[in-house]
């Protein structure tokens, strides 16, 4: 027998077009990144000057770049690189920021004031200037990019979660848990966190879009992932010198970025509806 809760979830999911479409597009993306490179014969790093700048056709679906590398193979390989980077740059700040927001909001008082002033200070810095200066000072590498994003992005999650915690703390179910003598860790983990994390998860989806733009922008500027590693921003930068002769070199990585953006926007909207409790 299916539990009533699981049944309700299924009904909710079956009516949620955004979430269904978002998951379908995400599935397609995962397929393109993990399965597709195995199926196509081209090596994303193999240089072949004889077949430079071939337009899209039967052999090279997305064409080849100025060094004769297959653009489709490179877009797929870059997807793996970009999504890895994005996962770390979004998930680590999500965990850190949500924890800080949860504890800060729940404890309140001086701890809360100090942490939130720190957030205010970081908030006041222009995001890209801060990221670029961190990467610029420490040198362009994937590790430094992780560090730069993790230092900056957690504040958004901390703010969102803290605000929700302040609202949840006034709810009588949190007070009931206190009267029932539960430990504060239990109250935070079981009674507050599940009721405050939804906006952070929804923001995480939006943040994936922002981060993919950030990471590709850094790649484009030469401050992120370094060539010859395929990366969408790097690929767009490489193609811009012959955009008129070989438009496909820049176009397809650009479309990949747009595709990821739409996918996670849909997922964010869908999850917002799906995770919000009834009544």
């Amino acid at each position: 027998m299916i539990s009533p809760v699981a049944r309700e979830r299924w009904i909710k999911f079956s009516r949620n077009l955004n979430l269904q479409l978002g998951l379908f597009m995400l599935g397609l993306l995962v397929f393109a990144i993990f399965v597709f490179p195995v199926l196509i014969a081209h090596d994303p790093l193999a240089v072949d000057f004889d077949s430079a700048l071939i337009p899209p056709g039967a052999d090279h679906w997305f064409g080849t770049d100025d060094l004769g590398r297959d653009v489709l193979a490179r877009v797929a390989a870059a997807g793996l690189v970009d999504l890895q980077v994005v996962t770390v740059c979004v998930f680590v700040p999500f965990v850190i920021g949500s924890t800080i927001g949860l504890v800060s909001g729940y404890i309140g008082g001086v701890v809360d004031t100090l942490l939130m002033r720190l957030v205010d200070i970081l908030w006041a810095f222009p995001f890209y200037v801060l990221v670029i200066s961190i990467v610029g000072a420490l040198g362009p590498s994937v590790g430094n990019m992780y560090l730069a994003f993790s230092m900056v992005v957690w504040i958004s999650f901390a703010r969102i979660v803290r605000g929700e915690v302040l609202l949840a703390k006034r709810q009588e179910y949190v007070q009931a848990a206190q009267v029932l003598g539960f430990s504060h860790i239990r109250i935070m983990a079981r009674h507050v966190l599940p009721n405050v994390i939804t906006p952070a998860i929804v923001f995480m989806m939006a943040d994936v879009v922002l981060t993919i733009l950030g990471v590709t922008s850094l790649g484009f500027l030469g401050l992120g992932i370094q060539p010859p590693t395929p990366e969408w921003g790097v690929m767009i930068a490489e193609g811009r010198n012959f955009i008129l002769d070989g438009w496909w070199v820049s176009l397809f990585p650009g479309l990949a970025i747009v595709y990821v953006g739409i996918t996670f926007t849909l997922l964010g909207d869908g999850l917002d509806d799906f995770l919000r409790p009834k009544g």
Partner: protein
Amino acid sequence: MLIEPLLEIRDVSKTFPQPRTLLEVLARQPKRTLHALRGVSLMLRPGETLGIVGESGCGKSTLGRCLAGLHTPEGGEILWRRQPLSDIRRADRSRRIQMVFQDPYSSLNPRMTIAQMLDEVLFVHAPSMSSAERRDRTDSLLQMVGLSPGLKNRLPHAFSGGQRQRISIARALALEPEVLVADEPVSALDVSVQAQIINLLESLREKLGISIIFIAHDLNVVRHISHRVAVMYLGQIVETAATETLFGNPQHPYTQALLSAIPVPDPDIRSLQVGVQGELPDPLSPPPGCGFSTRCPFVMDKCEKPIPEFFDSGGEHHVRCIRAHSSTFSVPA
């Protein structure tokens, strides 16, 4: 007294500091405090229901929260069988005093099923119970409050307000407390459902021998369920007595005004309206004397200060009014 009181509240006070604006801080204005409880003394016997009434803002909820441990009183003490409540550990206290909240729509965690909620209480407080024992106990708790255990795997939104309040009661009684603080448990419910919840509380009190502190502003409800009633006004108790004494022979002008405001469903009976003018005084700066002096129709110069003492008019009927002291006022011997 023959029966030792379960809870003794002695001269408890509680204030809430009001936040100052930046301008007030710069102008070095003194911090203002809201006096929610001003020297409240009460006692509760085992197995009795004590009603606490008063208009909103009089501090009755604050008193309930102090008992449940949600607020810490600043002055006075609360004794549990002669032991200060503040010496009792949080977990032990929660096994003695439990609370039912006002709003059934916010008092249940919307992400937990009823079974999870009750199971958690047992899991935390009785680690020796096996999961099968906890399941049996959950079922019997739900049956005790008149709900079918078949519904336990649902989330709170599947239940009506009355059902949710039953769930709240089951959760509070899972620890077999001796005192249940019910903070306006029926004011958010439909009238027809109110009676069901009141009768449930009443039968549970008889069956389990618990004491109930019933906080409400509906006098008819309080009269129905309480053995004794305390009337609060502006953070103070102004009159306490056995229910029938208080309703039959109210002595404080505020109590008289409250009772005369109960609508009588008979147009031929015109209630003796004891007039009360004006609003509740600002609890940030309560009057120096009798709290009710600003609205009392019988106010005298003597009322303006100091705060009148309690007057025992016999048979556990206490009144905080100087008119009760005077000989012109009839007092039963």
